[in-house]
């Protein structure tokens, strides 16, 4: 029997597996990006598992690991924020495009840099190439609280202009 007969099926299997992977990721992304749970709800969920575990219920090992992982990452994040003096109060992401090679998402970040409130938006494009994933940022916009006018907003807008492609620092 000709090998090419298998190849047709094997190619389709591979393409279906890729498509399934992308669809599953897309579903997870939409699910995540359209959900919101308050800090109270997060705290209640943590306490729920901790109570269950203390109560001697078996089978919650993975959830406890989840809590540990979450708390460890939150500590790292808190450290970075304190170290750099930037507190992030909100961060949302919307995936615009996702293929096997490329992911494009817009990010909205709001926070406070010392005493200055800001709102940052940008588009992040991640491209899979031969050895690694390359990332680039486009459409960066920075908005600052209108109260803090003059010098700082001038600095920000001149920075944005300078950092368009074509300019050199």
């Amino acid at each position, binding site marked *: 029997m000709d090998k090419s007969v298998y190849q047709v*099926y094997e190619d389709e299997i591979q393409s279906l597996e890729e498509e*399934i992977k992308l669809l599953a990721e897309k579903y997870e992304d939409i699910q995540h990006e*359209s959900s919101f749970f308050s800090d109270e709800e997060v705290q209640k*969920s943590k306490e729920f598992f901790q109570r269950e575990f203390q109560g001697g219920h078996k089978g919650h090992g993975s*959830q406890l690991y989840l809590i540990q992982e979450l708390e460890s990452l939150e500590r*790292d994040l808190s450290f970075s924020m304190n170290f*750099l003096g930037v507190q992030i109060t909100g961060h949302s992401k919307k995936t615009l495009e996702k293929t096997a090679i490329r992911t494009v998402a817009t990010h909205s970040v709001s926070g406070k840099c010392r005493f200055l409130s800001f709102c940052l938006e940008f588009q992040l494009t991640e491209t899979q190439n031969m050895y690694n994933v*390359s990332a680039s940022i486009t459409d960066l916009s920075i908005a600052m609280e209108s109260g803090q006018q003059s010098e700082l907003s001038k600095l920000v807008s001149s920075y944005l202009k300078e950092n368009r*492609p074509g300019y050199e*620092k």
Partner: protein
Amino acid sequence: MEGERNSDEKESALRGRSPTTASQDGGERMSEVPFAQRKVEEGKVYSGDGVLGYLEMMEAQAHELGLKQEEKEQQEKKLNRLKARVQELRARRDELRAKVELQEKRLLDKEGTVTDPAQPSAQTVLEWKLKGVRATIQFFYLTGISGKLTTQGVCFCISTAYEGTYMDSYYVDILTKPEVKIQLHSVPVFIPLEQIAKKYLQTDIRHFLSVLSDHLNAYVGRRHQAEQLEEQFSDRIEGTLQRNSLCNLLVFNYNVSKNSKTFLFNVRLLYGDLCHSLPTEAIISCTSGTLPLLAEKAAAHSYAFRHMALHKAFDSLINAKEGQDQTP
């Protein structure tokens, strides 16, 4: 004993059964009989060995046919497996597609957040939160300086970028007790890390990281420009581009023309400020005696190299509009 066995095999071959396959599945194969008859009819009688030779040939052919039959069955089995797998995957793919479409429809119908109408499980909430925290950590990574707590201190990550595209990341693992000290790092050896650490590490870690980040960003910027020049203009550069590891010294040659004559320019770029990705000096020289003639052009080229990214400067120079000087 052997003779007996041989004659048995030959007998079964004559009857149309291949010895090997018969022992494997115990069944009889009838297809070999007509084949044998055909062979006789075609006149292929091995008169040399007589009947014995003929029987041996029959046996070999029956054996071969048996193998082919087996192979055919294996192939069919494999094909059926593949077909079944394709069906299974298609069904799963269609199921996921429907799920995603439903999700998207729900989003459009109900602006804003779409939390599951049923009470979300604690697991869902925590997984959501974890994913969100990871995303914010990635954001900090994108800002250029981020840190991860270790048992004895902090491991900082400096991510570099040039013109909006991220380049390499470098790590500095710092101990904080009993004193502030660099334990491990992935900073290249030609970056003056020790010097920078000596100056700032003990007094102001933030400043230390900021200065180190400037050095690293400038380095990757210079390296990127040199790589782009080589990649995009290898045909316009005479010989090879020479550079040091730190990419703060670049030398290359290219041809310029004036009055229908071709001259070779040698460019020496010196990046005096290691925190900058533009050269502080761009020295252009050419074969002795011709410089006075080309002084204006050399000055213009030098200016371009000092004020624009290398590959972009070169691009503009070789594509300059034909003026009095004609094309470079």
